[in-house]
């Protein structure tokens, strides 16, 4: 164990612990933009810098191991000044349209500007000029809001392994790009949206959810994906009794199968829930046509028909197909209904199909 002082508080941490973690233990809230606990370290946003006694430069806590005897100040005037200037530099390349931004309220740039009272940037030269349209139905790429944290690039590489995006050019002109700056649809992108998940600002957002609700207006209901058998944990975003989006939980405890990773279906294939084509009333066939019926009528009619057939042809003349898509509880009831009520073991589902 090594011992160091952080904002006057002595903490002990195992050797190899990064300062960021040590600061967290000491109760200091360090702002970060490029840091993601599950991705390779970049050490590039420099928001997490702190002052260490005896050091000329500020230290980026995410990539600096704690050393014995360090004396760290996490909010000294130099530190605050550096963070403010970094925020102003980012604001000057960031399209400020929080009022219409999908990430309004869930934006680290916004949070930190608020925290440090940065209302505007003193660097009032050339504004952002990075965005070009990308016609795909899933991912909105607005690089005029990009702060070059490269978390999307790392997620694409280290979570999904799609390797669709990287950084092109250099300096201020560097930008997140596919090969030849083409559209995602022509790249190796699989539209998993992991990039949206890790984007700390509004540069990458869901087109399917666009305009349907800001992050703070939605309730996140954690559930299990309805598609393949992997069983990914996801959060349905609900606004006004309507599902308006899917987000995921970056936490291996809470999202044990997928740790927040999803596929295109899980992340973007949810709006069938709100489809106009949803069935909203029972139907009964009459004179060859399906007509609307009340629940009572449909249930009674079905009960009497099934009873009639059972009486006439025997229980084994009836079968039930239960479903690989409904819940365990419903499957249980379906087979119970078949066995106990219909009186047959003719129950199966499309496990084989």
């Amino acid at each position: 164990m090594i011992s160091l002082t952080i904002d006057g508080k002595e903490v002990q941490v195992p050797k190899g612990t990064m300062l960021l973690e040590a600061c967290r233990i000491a109760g200091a809230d360090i702002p970060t933009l490029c840091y993601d606990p599950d991705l390779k370290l970049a050490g590039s946003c420099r928001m997490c810098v702190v002052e260490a006694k005896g050091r000329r430069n500020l230290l980026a806590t995410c990539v600096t191991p704690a050393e014995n005897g360090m004396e760290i100040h996490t909010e000294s005037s130099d530190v605050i000044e550096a963070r403010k200037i970094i925020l102003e530099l980012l604001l000057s390349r960031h399209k400020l349209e929080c009022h219409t931004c999908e990430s309004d309220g869930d934006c680290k740039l916004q949070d930190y500007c608020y925290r440090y009272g940065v209302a505007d940037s003193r660097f009032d030269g050339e504004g952002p000029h990075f965005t070009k349209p990308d016609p795909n139905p899933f991912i909105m790429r607005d690089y005029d809001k990009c702060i070059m944290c490269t978390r999307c690039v790392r997620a694409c590489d280290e979570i999904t392994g799609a390797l669709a995006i990287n950084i092109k050019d250099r300096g201020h002109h560097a930008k997140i790009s596919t090969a030849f700056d083409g559209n995602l649809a022509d790249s190796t992108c699989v539209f998993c949206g992991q990039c949206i998940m890790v984007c700390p600002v509004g540069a990458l957002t869901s087109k399917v959810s666009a305009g349907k609700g800001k992050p703070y207006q939605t309730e996140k209901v954690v559930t299990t994906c309805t598609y393949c058998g992997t069983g990914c944990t996801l959060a349905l975003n609900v606004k006004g009794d309507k599902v308006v989006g899917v987000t995921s939980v970056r936490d291996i405890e809470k999202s044990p199968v997928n740790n927040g990773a999803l596929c295109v279906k899980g992340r973007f294939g949810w709006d069938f829930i709100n489809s106009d084509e949803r069935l909203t009333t029972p139907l009964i066939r009459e004179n060859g046509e399906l007509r609307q019926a009340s629940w009572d009528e449909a249930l009674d009619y079905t009960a009497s028909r099934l009873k009639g057939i059972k009486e006439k042809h025997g229980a084994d003349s009836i079968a039930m197909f239960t479903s690989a898509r409904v819940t365990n509880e419903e499957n249980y009831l379906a087979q119970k209904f078949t066995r106990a009520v219909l009186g047959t073991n003719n129950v199966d589902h499309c496990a084989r199909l």
Partner: protein
Amino acid sequence: MPVHTFCEGGEKMANYVDIIELYRGKKGGIIEAFHALQNEFNYIPEEALGLVAKTFGVSEAEAYGVATFYSYLSVKPRGKYIVRMCESAPCHIAGADQVVKAIESYLGINVGETTADGKFTFELCECIGQCQATPVVTINSEPIFNVSPEQIPEILSACK
């Protein structure tokens, strides 16, 4: 050598393969492969970049990121002669600006452009390490020393 804008078929592709294959297995040899392609084509054609990516086991996006990082690599077609004017401080104070104007005016293009006949591309560059004789222009990496605006027509007309 003509400017290759597109891969016109199997022959050129074979050419790319031949060049790139020389570097296969060379750890980190991707930049050298790019240099070799540029020596042949003056830029890195799209198909060639894809092949390089495959050969060195990196994604196309990464290969593109590498190609666009270095100022001497280009993913856009360039002229037969790449004229570069050093603009770093020693050349700057030796009158590089005037030479730039002379080159632009002689070639009829601005910095960053290629002449319509595909003969010249004009670029600015940073220090090329020949500061004993500023300002310096390079043509296809060959330095020309103590260049004055008046010498430009003579220098460029010598490029056939």
